[in-house]
């Protein structure tokens, strides 16, 4: 790593993917992540062969880890891309540092999330029946079903997030192509070249790219709110007293933010130290990110207080159900989640902690774990009280469900590692743009 004064020299960023060797640590991580994906393959195969019988679900707890993890992953994805989009649209300086891997994290999280709605089905191989295709029997999906909305939500999410990520990547892919060609790596250059779509860096290209990039970013923005909301509507539109609350979409969207930001923060800290990119992801960037997260957590704090307040004002059925969730068998999960989401990130107001990589990773992932606990308490705890006495035992995840979760974590990790290996983790063209603007007197 040269101590070149010129930050706009993004060669070190481009060097990372072009390096021949990545070191044993990367190999180890890649191996671990690949093992996780193998675990995922095993869990999926077991699920397909033996069925949802393997899970801890029952009537009434028909959903368990499937929906908990789905909502959690989609929350991470949403918050991470929401964050990236806002940075792009506001042309915020921080975008140069983080939006590339925020987008990548969002994409990887969407991939992990998208597995669950399919796998949670009793007959996963028939998932395409929610598609409105002209079937022989002319049976169409039930368009009033939130699950159909959710299908569209997640499909749009996948498409637009990948578009957003990819559009932002094109100039850098072209840079990678050129640098690889300069180093005589013809095959690598061709690989990047294909995806760079013939980018030559003409002014016209740049103008169109900027328009397209911002357009896609603007597209992402409303959809992110809607996607999370649709997920929440899957619960809120049911007759289950605790779920049937107008505040639920807001709760899911807002509490999703710290988890996404937490994952981005943790990744930023890891990349900074792991890939030696502290120059491009500098302390000011970390400060901004950390403060944003702490502030989002405060917002969540407001939501938790509001939840408690409205619960006491609700009709008896809803009140009992909410209180059962907050103080019932899953109450510890709820309050543990609240502590991790609201209280833990407040530590980030301390500069010492937000500049320390281990602390940032711990707090970031802690918040993500907190949101996971919150989703558990919501999905399982929300069913503790229904209109009639409960007819089944409590839900507790089984080993195959844990295996599936571990597997999706492995998938997420593998995608992130491959991303770090193959693609510039910091947006080079944005950095150059930023720095050159800064140089203008």
């Amino acid at each position, binding site marked *: 790593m040269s101590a070149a004064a010129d930050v706009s020299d993004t060669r070190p960023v481009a060097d990372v993917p072009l390096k021949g060797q990545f070191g044993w640590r990367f190999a180890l991580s890649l191996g671990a992540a690949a093992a996780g994906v193998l675990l995922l393959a095993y869990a999926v195969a077991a699920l397909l062969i033996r069925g949802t019988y393997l899970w801890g679900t029952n009537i009434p707890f028909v959903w368990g880890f499937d929906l908990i993890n789905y909502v959690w992953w989609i929350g991470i994805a949403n918050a991470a891309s929401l964050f990236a989009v806002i940075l792009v649209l506001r042309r915020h300086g921080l975008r140069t540092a983080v939006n590339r891997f925020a987008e990548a994290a969002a994409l990887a999280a969407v991939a992990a999330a998208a597995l669950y709605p399919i796998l949670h089905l009793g007959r996963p191989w028939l998932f395409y029946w929610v598609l409105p295709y002209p079937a022989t029997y002319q049976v169409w999906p*039930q368009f009033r079903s939130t*699950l159909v909305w959710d299908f569209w939500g997640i499909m749009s999410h996948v498409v637009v997030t990948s578009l957003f990520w990819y559009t932002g990547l094109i100039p850098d892919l072209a840079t990678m192509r050129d640098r690889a060609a300069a180093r005589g790596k013809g095959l690598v250059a061709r690989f990047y070249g294909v995806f760079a779509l013939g980018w030559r860096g003409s002014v016209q290209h740049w103008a169109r790219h900027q328009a397209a990039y911002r357009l896609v970013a603007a597209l992402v923005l409303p959809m992110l709110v809607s996607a999370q909301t649709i997920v929440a509507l899957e619960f809120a539109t049911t007759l289950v007293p605790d779920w049937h609350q107008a505040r639920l979409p807001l709760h899911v969207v807002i509490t999703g933010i710290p988890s996404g930001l937490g994952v981005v923060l943790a990744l930023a800290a890891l990349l900074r130290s792991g890939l030696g990119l502290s120059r491009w992801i500098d302390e000011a960037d970390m400060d901004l990110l950390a403060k944003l997260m702490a502030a989002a957590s405060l917002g969540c704090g407001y939501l938790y207080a509001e939840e408690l307040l409205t619960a006491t004002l609700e009709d008896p059925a809803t009140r009992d159900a909410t209180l059962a969730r907050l103080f019932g068998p899953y109450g510890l999960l709820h309050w543990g989640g609240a502590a991790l989401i609201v209280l833990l990130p407040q530590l980030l107001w301390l500069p010492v902690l937000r500049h320390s990589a281990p602390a940032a990773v711990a707090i970031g992932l802690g918040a993500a774990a907190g949101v996971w606990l919150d989703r558990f308490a919501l999905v399982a705890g929300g069913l503790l009280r229904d209109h009639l006495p409960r007819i089944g035992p409590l839900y507790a995840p089984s080993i195959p469900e844990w295996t599936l979760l571990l597997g999706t974590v492995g998938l997420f990790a593998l995608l992130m590692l491959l991303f770090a290996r193959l693609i510039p983790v910091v947006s080079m063209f944005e950095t150059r743009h930023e720095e050159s603007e800064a140089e203008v007197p």
Partner: protein
Amino acid sequence: MQHSMTDEHSPPLPERRTVLRAAGASLALAAAAGCDVGPAEFGHPLHARARGVTEEALTYATVLDLDGLGRGVLVRTRAGHAIKIEGNPAHPASLGATDVFLEAAVLSLHDPARSRRSRRAGRALRETAGLPAFLEERRAALAAAGGAGLRLLTGPVSSPTQRRLIGAVLAAFPEARWHVHAPLADAGAAEGARRAFGEAVVPVHDLSRAACTLSLGADLLGPGPAQLRQARDWSAARAPGRAGQAPLPRLIVAESVPSLTGAKADQRLALPPAGIEALARAVAAELGIAAAGGAPHPEAPGIAAALRAAGPSGLVAAGRGQPASVHALAQAMNATLGAMGTTVRLIDDPAGAAEAGDLAALAGEMAQGAVTDLLVLDANPVLDAPAGLDMPALLARVPHTLHAGLYPDETALACAWHLPLRHPLECWGDSLAFEGTAALRQPATVPLVETALPAEEILAHLAGRPAPAEALVRETWREAWGEEGFEERWLAALEGGVVPDSAAPARELRLRPDFDPGPAAPETAGFTALFLPDPHLWDGRFAPNAWLQELPRPLEKLAWGNAALIAPQDAMALLVGDGAEAEITLHGRSLTVPVVIAPGQAPGVVALPLGGGRRAAGGVEPGLGFDAYRLRPAAAPWAAPGLALRPTGRVRPLVSTAWHHPVESDPPPARRVAQGEVIPPLPPPRSLYPDWSYPGHAWGMAIDLDACIGCNACSLACQAENNTPVVGPEETARGRAMHWLRVDRYHRGPPEAPETDFQPVPCMHCEKAPCEVVCPVNATVHDHEGLNLMVYPRCIGTRTCSNNCPYKVRRFNWADYARATGAVPVRNPEVPLRARGVIEKCTYCQHRIVAARTAAGLEGRPIREGEVETACQRACPTRAISFGDVNDPASTVSRARREGRHYALLGHLDTRPRTTYLARVVPAGTRADAMPAGTRADAMPAGTRADGVPASTQAESGAPEEPA
């Protein structure tokens, strides 16, 4: 063939190959058993003209026994196989209804764990090798000795043919003896009757005429050979009261252990056994029976006044296990009230066998070595003999033992030889109902176990007069009816399923003045152990039946196992909750048992259900529950004082479906109204969508909670009709049992004296069905007659519909329950099996609607009212369920919906259910739904988790604990 048949009613003929194989097997069998059974006997189920219009689906009348007493049934067959049992409306012990045992019989018939081979020393034999020779040799040896050393052990027998053949055996072997062993026989009742009337007569209760009933521990509405009749009569007597046209008949129940009767009582006293006798004496004294004596009881004057007011319409019934004094007092009170001839009819015990010895006498002889040959016919003394009788050792002392039974059970394994017995549905035979009405049994199916023999043929062979069972039964009835017109009477009795006018004549007996044997022994320290039949396993004979095992018990909601029931006060004192393990010791014998708190149980009483913990119970894994027979003393088989109970501190996993959290909703789901009270209708529903119109039929169901006795028959009938799979104990514990119709049980008020209500919950078929709009693939939809139906092939298994169903009636196939190996082997071909990953639920027996529609269409007429009967409706002993067209204002269901006590469950959700309820009626002035402040419904004593989850299951699932 002796029976006449017209061509249009020809039987479903088995395939030629089956016939050949069956004939071959039958010949081999006949040779083996030495019976002269021709090949024509085998494989021909049709003997009466069939009921039904199609060639394929035929219904036959026959009779099935419980405790030796018959209940008439109609067996629906498809292609020669029995698939469903329904009650025979003509039979007085059924009246068209079924109980859980009758419904489950079809599964026992098809049970792959049934005994299929003869056994020698417990090992199955490939051929019946050696058995015929052995039998011949023993017959010859015994004949030479006049039968000395030959003993015959049976269960209770009411069958005229079997009794005739036993008589023939005893005549052929004058030195032989017959012993009857019935673990549930009530010696106290027989002794009480003997004290009261000088003879062991049995009272037949007519609850339809009872204005006031006092039950002294009698579970009149609970399971038993007379349940269906008594429950129907009880419900019929309440009908005018429900309509507000007459006062409600009163049911006063004094009992130690909560029962279905207690749950329906207007006044319930939880008393220990000694307290019941004290109450009986006090009430008798109030009624002016001088001999009664005893201390006054605070409740006695009121009860006596009510009985006196009822006069001849009063009824006092003493229950199984009460001491002879209580039975005698009950009869004395009935005689004093003038109830003999109105609510009580005395008849000779249809299964009484004065000439037979009991098991104790047999055991004595076996111990002395006086028994050389023992034939155990359809009895299981190794399981159900009293503790202290070491039956395996005693059987080992008998040189030649032969057991004939349906299963390779404990006794089969302990005997030298075992012969598989035919299931009653495969047999010829006859039996008497609890009130003496005779019915003929005919094979309603192709025999499924080729080697099995009917008991009649074994007896006939032993008597030296081998004949096919049909001939044996005919012979019995030819003797009774004479030659003239025999064939007509025979066919009529077969077709009708009942021998007309054969009820036992009432005995006119005078009460003896010295009827009172004096007070029973006073209470001693410690708990009193009460032994009682299990509501689903009965005396243990139904333990191999997976349907009965998996069906949650009506009150404690336990499945796949049993538990000792203790009073809430005792649980509080011992600091134990549901699922706690305890060591119980009685007369030096110990068992470790799980404990379950029974709200409403008398303190100081530990109820031990019999029939669990069987070591050899067919396909059911051994060790489900505990075997209370191991503690049951011969001297006090029903109530044994001196039980010590010590909690071990451990928990035992129980399979329970009682996950109830406190129900505080107002009004409660299972509602009560005071007589004449009208439930105000809900405000008119609002919806963004226009109403759908149902111009043709619009099916609806109304369930009368006043008539519902919580007997579970509907639930099991639904399971049998709809191929609802059995999921096993592990899956049931996980909350995945598949019953389409569950019976919710609510306790309200203090746990010491709860008010108990039952509420059967099938699918509500909501007009605004919340399940439909959330299904992404339109797999659950409404049909043109308002049925909310599942399209199984379209279901992808999101389970969202279950989430959105406020009634939680949708069940999910987590695994391939229906088709997995070991799945239930009996299937109704009219209902599809559901695949793994698919939701299923009540269809209102849509296939029956379709059948009726088709039949009506063929005849060019509309479907008639009552033509469609759902399986649950048909099974219900009290006719609590009415089903029909709500568009037809004259239909029963429409009339029910116009009643003042009609309401929709969770009506405020505006799902507009088609299944609705009629509230339970309590006498005006008694509190109905209004709950006093501070009482929580389903309140649990300390030691129980607030949501009632047994701590063990909780620990197992690893879910976090709820703060206390």
